[in-house]
């Protein structure tokens, strides 16, 4: 049996050369790897990091939006945003299961994920550290934040890891509803009163840097670490951070402009020659601060998660099968 013991891939390379070659053959032939298949440690660890962060981000991502459930302007909007918040929790449940099966050889489980989140070892997406100040922000999360998430998730719909690929397929189908839910809020504001248009523009101005940051830096040299080469090598995703950011700008900027909105960067334009959008880099040091739980709402949201976890502890204790100890 392969020894998972937490050692790095390099330590096992000789011993597992053959297995590794066979594994890469399968991945490159487009076969799907399943939870109990042999896989190199680097692959397992990359997946755990990616999927646990994705899963916990769905759960933390429900928090900025749920703040607007009691304040939604109409009953229909309230039902819509409630459904969306519930979907995010469902996506989280699905993804955490995928991560947990991968972590099992390391003796880790749901409890360890929650503890890692609360002690800062498990990060969540930069956008969910930000405040949702107005109803326009609630719409912006559905429209552009989910839009960015859709770009990065659909890029992994052919991922080599079977359980993740199947979870993503399910998630992306529901994201279509989320996108239109966000668009409906934005459209109403864009076609609304002067004040509604003002909060919409203000919201876009506030979210713009976070949206650019969402895809991560172009290269590892910007922030000191990036998993993009490893994830493409193992066919988990297809494109680089910058390619995904460009795809996002391609799809969404024309729509932004069509609503009469502007972005807070006068240099933004499409360079026909280079076939890419030119834009000002966001502050990547700020990005590092945000994802290290030093963002504007990081502490409050983690605290909320902690309260829920602690308050429900008695339920977990009461329903756990009893173990007799002497």
């Amino acid at each position: 049996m392969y020894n998972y013991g937490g050692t790095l891939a390099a330590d096992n390379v000789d011993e597992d050369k053959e297995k590794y070659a066979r594994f890469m053959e399968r991945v490159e032939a487009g076969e799907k790897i399943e939870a109990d298949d042999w896989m190199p440690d680097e692959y397992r660890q990359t997946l755990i990091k990616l999927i646990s962060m994705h899963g916990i981000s769905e759960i933390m991502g429900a928090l900025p939006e749920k703040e607007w459930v009691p304040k939604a302007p109409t009953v229909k909007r309230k039902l819509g945003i409630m459904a969306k918040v519930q979907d995010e929790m469902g996506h989280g449940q699905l993804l955490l299961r995928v991560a947990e099966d991968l972590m099992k050889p390391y003796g880790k489980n749901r409890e360890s994920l929650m503890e890692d989140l609360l002690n800062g070892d498990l990060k969540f997406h930069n956008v969910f550290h930000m405040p949702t100040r107005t109803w326009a922000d609630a719409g912006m999360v559905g429209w552009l934040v989910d839009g960015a998430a859709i770009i990065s998730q659909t890029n992994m719909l052919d991922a080599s890891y079977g359980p993740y690929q199947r979870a993503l397929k399910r998630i992306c189908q529901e994201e279509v509803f989320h996108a239109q839910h966000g668009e409906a809020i934005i459209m109403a504001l864009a076609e609304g009163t002067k004040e509604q248009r003002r909060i919409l523009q203000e919201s876009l101005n506030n979210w713009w840097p976070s949206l650019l940051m969402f895809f991560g830096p172009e290269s590892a040299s910007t922030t000191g670490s990036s998993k993009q080469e490893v994830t493409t090598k193992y066919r988990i995703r297809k494109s680089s951070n910058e390619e995904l950011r460009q795809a996002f700008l391609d799809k969404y900027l024309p729509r932004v402009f069509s609503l009469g909105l502007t972005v807070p960067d006068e240099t933004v334009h499409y360079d026909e020659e280079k076939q890419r959008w030119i834009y000002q880099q966001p502050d990547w040091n700020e990005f590092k601060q945000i994802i290290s739980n030093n963002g504007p709402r990081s502490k409050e949201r983690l605290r909320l998660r902690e309260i829920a976890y602690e308050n429900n502890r008695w339920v977990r204790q009461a329903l756990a099968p009893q173990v007799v100890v002497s």
Partner: protein
Amino acid sequence: MEKQNESNFYREYEVFSKKNEKSPIQHQFSLLAPNDDMALNMAQENFMRREKVLDVWVVPRNHIRSMNSEERLQWTNRLDNKDYRSTKGYGYLRKKWSEKEQGMLDEKEIMSWKEVKKS
């Protein structure tokens, strides 16, 4: 003395569901729950909010004997000389029947024989 250890709270379940009366039960995903009833509840709440669902099964994962990695490789690697077991090996009949100005009674044709002429 009895100790309630919350780390025993989660059990792994596999969830299966059925869309309509004609469709087979299909595997959906897995979830964690402390018991069968909560697993069923979680399956509905978390994953079946929109789609049509006629029936749901939740099965503790350790009650399922599934193939392991090696078995899957072995069992799914079928020999490709099993034509005699499928209609593929009898495809030449289509030409024969057509020479005799008869149609082929293929799967599509046979599966359409739900009704016969009433006397």
